[in-house]
């Protein structure tokens, strides 16, 4: 018995696929903003005077980096309600993704901060800038420029990993694919199309970030 590919279902499914892709982009957008903000805080905490703070961030980074994202997601979504923290699937997904990504980007941001020569901060102080201005206007932009490619890669990795939040019934791209293939019985074709859409999304995100990075951080961003 031969099997012939059939993409006829695609016309009726376009709406669902677009909706799912939009949800995936929404999840990764929230995660990127929150994750990078948190990792700037954590990277600073890791370099603070307080030993407890430094230890706490180090433990957090190690725990997240050495356990699977799917287990973290299940722990947050299924485990936390038993100690009274009940989360909406979308909130749980964003929380899990943010905590996961921040563990990786904390290291990246930290490396970027260390790469900015000390003289830059000292020079800014000498010009009379306040400590916060020194950090936001002098140190951070230079650090971001160094780590930009690594950050883009991390955002894309997280976007691809976000496919597993379909397992807690968040209606993103992978979940729409699950629903579609259950309806059309065209499993292979459905996952094939959706896989290509993910590929397109990851290429588009890279382009977008590189273009945005050139705008904000100046030339030399790749």
């Amino acid at each position, binding site marked *: 018995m031969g*099997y012939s590919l059939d993409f006829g279902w695609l016309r009726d499914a376009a709406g669902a696929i677009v909706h799912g892709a939009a949800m995936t982009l929404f999840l990764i957008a929230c995660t990127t903003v929150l994750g990078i903000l948190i990792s700037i805080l954590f990277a600073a905490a890791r370099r603070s005077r307080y030993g407890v703070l430094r230890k706490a961030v180090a433990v957090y980074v*190690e*725990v997240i*980096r*050495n*356990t*699977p*994202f*799917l*287990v*973290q997601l*299940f*722990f947050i979504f*299924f*485990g*936390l*309600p*038993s*100690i009274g923290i009940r989360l909406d699937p979308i909130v749980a997904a964003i929380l899990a993704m943010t905590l996961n990504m921040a563990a990786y980007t904390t290291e990246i941001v930290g490396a970027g901060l260390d790469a900015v020569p000390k003289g830059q901060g000292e020079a800014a102080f000498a010009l009379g800038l306040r400590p916060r201005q020194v950090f936001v206007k002098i140190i951070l932009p230079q650090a971001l420029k160094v780590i930009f490619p690594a950050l883009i890669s991390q955002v*894309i990795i997280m976007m*691809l*990993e*976000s*496919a*597993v939040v*379909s*397992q807690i019934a968040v209606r993103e791209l*992978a979940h729409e*694919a699950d629903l579609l*293939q259950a309806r059309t019985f065209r*499993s*292979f074709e459905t*996952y*094939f199309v*959706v*896989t290509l859409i*993910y*590929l397109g999304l*990851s*290429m588009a995100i890279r382009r977008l970030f590189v273009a945005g990075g050139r705008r904000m951080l100046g030339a030399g961003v790749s």
Partner: protein
Amino acid sequence: MIEFTLWDILRNLVFATRWTLLLSIVAFAGGATVGLLILFARISKQKWLRRFGSGYIALFQGTPLLMQLFLMFFGLPMLGFRIEPWTAAALGLTFYASAYLAEIWRGGVEALPLGQWDAGASLGLHRLQELRLVILPQAFAITRPPAVGFLVQLIKSTALTSIIGFEELLRTANAINNATFEPFTVYGLVAVIFFVLCYPLTQYARMLERKMPAH
């Protein structure tokens, strides 16, 4: 109704961990073998082979592993193979690992000075001998830290095979959770077991990196 003690839960989880370990080992060995072929294509003298190699790597690094596993699981039966969750999981992770390992090793090969190739050629070695005797041993040596780092990523990735029905650690945990209704304990223990597997490797990779001569 059967009562589960903490010890029962832990014992069952630890017992299921052997499948996680076995899958990791099979996928790493398979990935290394296929990855070597992809590496040869990626650094070939033929342009179309290089194109194929970089396309292969971009494809596997640019799509979710979960989708790759689904495509294996639903695609292979269409080609006439009878497929079980184990086969789909092992094959899926093998291809996934091959793309990452090939890319890691390519970095190693390209980091070597061109003089190494020239030296090999001047000794009268042909290309395969050059690769086998001169280039690859050095490339493998300098890329050991990222390769071990990838092994950690691969072990964590085996958790995804629970979704296509392979009975590894996480799927066993789901079943236990359905019987005990203690998700906090069960998933907490799963996280601990994964941590115990991965943390030593992470530390090992870090140690290797520190021992690397600085360039």
